[in-house]
Structure formats: C-alpha cells, structure tokens
C-alpha cells in the first residue's frame, strides 16, 4: 500500500475515534444536564413564606423572629385580598337569590384558587391533611397558581367537529362591577409581597422525613432503604460469588459439568430483572417465608441473586488475571493450595474483585423491578437496622417510578421526583468513583 494512503487511513481512524468520543460526551451532557438542572430544583429554589411556615411547623426549623416578621408582612399584603372577598360576600347577601346562584360556582372556584395560592384563610380550621395546611411553598408553583387565579382556562368548543382551542379568559370578567373587581389586579401587582420569596438551599431534602406522601419534606427513608437493600445484596452475593469464582478457576476440573455451570451463570446474568422480582416473591416470601410481608431481607436476597452472576464473572476474571508465576512461586515454597489461594491469589486479585463488587452495588442500588414485589413500598418510615428483617421500605428507584405514575398529585411534586433521580444518580456515581479510587489505592499498595 502507498505510504500516503496508509497515512490517510490512519488519520481517519483516529478521527473516527475522536468523533465517537465527542459524540459520547455530547450524549452524556444531553442526558445528564436536564437531570442535574431539574434535580437541583429540589435543593435550591425560590421559596415562599408558606415554605418557611411549613418548615417551622413540621421540622421546627428556621429563625422564629424572622419568620414572625416575614409572616406579618405577608399577612398585611394579603389582607386586602381577604377584605375584598368579605366585601363580596356581603354583596352576595344583599343580592336576589337568582343573582346569588349565578355567582355560586364562579365564586367557589375563586375561593379555591385563592386558597391554593395563599393557603387557608385567617381563622380557618386547621386542615387534617398537611397538604391543605399551606399555600404554595415554591415560587414556580405559586406562579402557576397565580395564573390560575387570574385566568380561567377554558376551551372553545364552538366547532364540535374540531378539537377545542385553549383560551385564557381573565377571571376578573366574571366579577365585573362587584367588590372583587380590584382583587385580580391587586394580586398580580402584590404577588411578591404576598409570597415573600427567598432563595432557599434546602439540603435537608436528603435527611428529612417525607410528609403527606412526599408532598412536603425530604426523601430520607428512600435513601436509607436503598442503602439497606444494596448493602444486603452485597452481603449475600459477595461471599457466595467470590467462593464460586475461586472454585471455578482454581478447583474445578475442565469438564462438561463445569462448562455447563459457566453457561448457567452467564444465562443467569441475562435473565430480565422483573423475573428475579417475581421469583423473589414466589420463593423467598411465599414459599420459604423469610418474612411475613415484603421486607428489606427478601428484597436484598433477590437483588443478591441478581448481581451474583456479575460478581462471579468479575471475580473469575480477576483471579484468572493473577500471573501464573505468583502461584507457582507460592506452591514452590511449599504452601498448600488453599493457603496459596488465600494469601497469594486473592490479595492480588482483590482490586479486580472489589471493582466488580462496587459496580454491581451500583446495579443493585438502581434496580426497580426486583424490589417491586419483594421490598418496596410507596409510603413508610425510615427503618432501624433491627427492622430490616420484617419491614418493607421505600427505595429510590421504586419511589421515582411511583411518583412519576401513581401519585395523585404528580404535577405538583415533580421537583421531588427529579430530586430523587439526581440523588440516585449521584449515589451510583459516588459508588463507581469509590471503585476507581479503591482500585488505584490497592494496586499501589500491592506494588509497593
């Protein structure tokens, strides 16, 4: 081949390599950036005074005097709203019954819109559900509520042969010529004064109990649950996995039985995770009854099975990679086989084994399907270590799914969902980083 063609080919090969790396990096940015940005919304956001009231009520957190002052100012700003509502109610009293009926529905809707934004009116009875005790706690949601207060969202159905068109009608139109006329303009102009926004860094999102099925508060039980499940899976999978790997590499004869065994392990690695979940339910809970209900224990066992093939394969590779000379030297010095495995082979294979373990930890932490039927619940307390044998637990992957699909207030609490997603990704990322660091340190130690 001409030297020139070879050069061009060489360059284009390098170029393709670079291009694919750039594409990968781009894809990562496209994938991770929205997650990070939206996930941070759970931690850093513009909070309203309602948020501070809620924090003080539920978690007894924040500066009381400052809150008092804030609340006083907010109440002063809100007073004209309630005054106007009251004045309108007076007007209603004096109206004829026909006129009153005309306003009944629209006034109810207005009251609800005000309540959604500002929370219970002064003097109202304490609501039994925390979600009804406060107005909007976040400025982004408050903005939506304000819009809902100012405009009626209707659809124009005048042409029944076509889909209706969304129109926003100013709500003030409905109350023209009544005491409420000025309310809308006032609310729009004094929005900030009524809500008193402040930039909040809510790191306690990570350690707070969720309140009222995740509508307020943090995600601590889910984080802890994920931690228990992962740790449990490792406790079950690692001893079994490493021992099997040692057997497969060092002891097993090279016959059809062993190759069949290897095939089984590979097959196990390819089984869909939901199958593990169903197996866990059928075997661990219904057949041998490791616990009466779903529990962390049953979930850990199931996850342990799921990552077992990964642990076996990575340990096998790591053990196989130990140079033959090490083994020969040890045997030559008179050490027995078991001693050689324990003192020479395992320590040299350790970096590889640990990397495998930590990567499977990441897998276990992020799996949803195996824990649906064996461990995960949508609402539950943070567990004490003594409870893991009998109690089920919330866990990040499952709760993300639950919030995304099953929760009755999905749209109001998107930020919680994204906060969970970010937390889970950071958790897995941290695990992988630990793997890298640990591996580097151990290899260095072994060499030195």
């Amino acid at each position, binding site marked *: 081949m001409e030297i020139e063609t070879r050069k061009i080919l060489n360059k284009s090969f390098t170029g393709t390599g670079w291009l694919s790396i750039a594409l990968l990096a781009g894809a990562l940015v496209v994938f991770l950036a929205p997650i990070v940005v939206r996930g941070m919304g759970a931690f850093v956001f513009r909070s309203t005074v309602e948020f501070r009231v809620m924090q003080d009520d539920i978690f007894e957190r924040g500066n009381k005097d400052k809150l008092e002052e804030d609340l006083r100012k907010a109440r002063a700003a809100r007073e004209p709203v309630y005054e106007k509502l009251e004045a309108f109610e007076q007007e209603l009293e004096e109206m004829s019954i026909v006129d009153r009926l005309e306003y009944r529905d629209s006034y109810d809707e207005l009251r609800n819109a005000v309540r959604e934004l500002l929370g219970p009116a002064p003097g109202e009875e304490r609501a039994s559900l925390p979600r009804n005790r406060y107005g909007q706690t976040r400025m982004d949601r408050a903005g939506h509520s304000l819009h809902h207060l100012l405009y009626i969202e209707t659809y124009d159905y005048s042409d029944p042969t076509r889909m209706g068109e969304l129109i926003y009608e100013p709500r003030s139109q409905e109350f023209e010529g009544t005491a409420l006329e000025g309310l809308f303009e006032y609310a729009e102009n004094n929005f900030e004064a009524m809500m008193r926004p402040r930039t909040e860094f809510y790191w306690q999102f990570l350690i707070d109990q969720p309140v009222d099925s995740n509508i307020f508060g943090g995600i601590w039980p889910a984080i802890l649950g994920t931690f228990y499940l992962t740790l449990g899976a490792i406790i079950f999978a690692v001893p079994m996995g490493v021992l099997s790997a040692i057997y497969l590499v060092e002891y097993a004869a090279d016959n059809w039985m062993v190759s069949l065994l290897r095939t089984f392990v590979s097959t196990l690695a390819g089984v869909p995770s939901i199958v593990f979940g169903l197996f866990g339910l059928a075997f661990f809970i219904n057949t041998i009854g490791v616990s009466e209900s779903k529990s962390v224990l049953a979930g850990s066992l199931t996850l342990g099975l799921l990552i077992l093939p990964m642990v076996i394969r990575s340990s096998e590779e790591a053990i196989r990679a130990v140079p033959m000379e090490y083994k020969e030297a040890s045997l030559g010095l008179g050490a027995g086989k078991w001693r050689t495995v324990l003192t020479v082979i395992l320590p040299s294979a350790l970096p590889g084994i*640990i990397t495998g373990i930590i990567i499977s930890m990441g897998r276990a932490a992020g799996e949803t399907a195996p824990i649906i*039927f064996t461990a995960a619940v949508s609402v*539950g307390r943070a567990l004490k270590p003594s409870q893991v044998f009998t109690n089920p637990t919330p866990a990040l992957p499952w709760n993300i799914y639950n919030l995304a699909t099953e929760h009755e207030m999905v749209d109001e609490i998107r930020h919680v969902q994204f906060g969970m997603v970010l937390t889970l990704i950071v958790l897995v990322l941290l695990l992988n980083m630990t793997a890298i660091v640990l591996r580097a340190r151990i290899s260095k130690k072994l060499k030195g």
Partner: protein
Amino acid sequence: MKMLRKVCLTLLAGMFLAVPFASADETELVIDGSTTVGPISKAFAEYFMEENPGVNVTVSESGSGNGIKSLINGACDIGQASRWMKEGEFKAAVENGVFPVAHVVGLDGLAPVVHPANPVGNLTLDEIRDIYAGEIRNWNEVGGPNMGIVKVSRDTNSGTYGVWQDVVMRGKDISADAEYVGSNGAIRARVQNTRGAIGYVGLGFVDRTVKGVSVEGIEPTPVNTATGRYPIARPLYMFTNGYPELGSALHRFVTIHMTPVGQSLVESIGFVPQTQY
C-alpha cells in the same frame, strides 16, 4: 493479607450489625393493593403515624388483585381493593385460613376522562362500551371532531378494571387495540398528553389537566356519586383477615374512616365519605 483481613472483617461486622436486637414496642402495618384506594391509605397512614409514633405503616400500590393475593398469602395486614373479592379469591383465602372482612372506607365514582380540548362532554353507557369494544372508532361518531379514539384501560389486575367490566362493558370484551396501563395516575398522564385519548379513573384523580365526561347526562361528582345518581360508582374496600382485635393498631387503622377526621381526609382527597355527617 492485611487488606484481605480488613475486608473480611468489615463484611463480617456488616452481617452482625444487621442482626436484630429485641424490638418489642415496634408494630408494623403493611398495606398493599389498589392504586385507587392508595391515596386514602397514604393519607390515613400520615394521620395515623402522627398519632401513633410507635407504629410503622407502609403502603404500596400494586393493584387490587395483588393486594388481595397478598392478604391471602398473609403478606399484608390490609388488602386494599376497589372491587369486591372474586369467588376464587374467597375460596383460596378460606383454604389458607384467611377469612376476609371488608371495611368500606369510602365511595368512588369512576369517571371517563378525555383530553380537555375534546368537545365531547357527555356519553351514554352504551357509547362508552362501544368505544372500548372497538365498535366506535372515531370521535365524530359521538358528536366530536374527526379524530381516532385512543382507548386507555387499566390492567386486568386492577379493581377499577373489574368494575369497568361489570358496569360498562357488560359482557363485551375490550378491543385488542386498547392500551393497558398500571395505575390511575398513568391513565391520567396518558390522557392529558394525548388529544384523542379516553381513559377512566377514580374521582380523586380527576383534576384540571383532564376532563371528566358526564355519563348519561350526569356529571361525575362526589355528590352525584354519594346519592347513587352517577351510574359508575363503587365502594372502596380495605380487607382484613377476620375482624381485627379490638383496640389493636390494625383495628384503629381500619376504623379511621368512621371518625370525622377520617371522613374529612377521604373527602379532601376527592373521594366520597361513606357516611354523611
């Protein structure tokens, strides 16, 4: 060698840390089942745990069928269901030594929901049945725009699906091109993003993002459900194994709905309290 010993020791320590130490004052209530009853159970759990700090109430929403199965297997204390138990389920329960007792915690209407832009505001039961059976395939056949109908249904494990079968389908089969999803919230999500879609959800899940359609001219509202005027209504159940021991945590939990607080909880999530007060 040292490293290996360390790793082994850490693992061992981990195992022993997890060994249970006596926990006498801890009670747990495990609730599983219907995604419709889920919000009620979650609200009750919130209220109950506030009052009883020693009790851990866990709620999962895996569908009525799974909830009942769990109860039969003794895997939960309360099986929440949005339909009555089937004959086979009763048999299986009794064979397992489980004697189900039903607690009706509230009532619920089942509202057909469409995209808010859809001008169709009223359907008859027969029309809804024919839509789901695949005989009506376009909205213009029921007075709407020329647009194909996307049918969204709950999975067959769901109690909501069971009630829909009984009251709406009345023996006809849901056509094969319907989409099946796993929860009320998922139906709502599908309908609010799909202009030609129709789905059905419990009253507590009808909000501003979807439009509840009147059935036979009657709006799906709590009042119409409580009075029995709205045709697709059902009670919501919590099943326990036998009547719970009086005064136990379980007993207190399944009687929350009889207290004024419980009724206001049911009402504030959008369902209909069973008794009027």
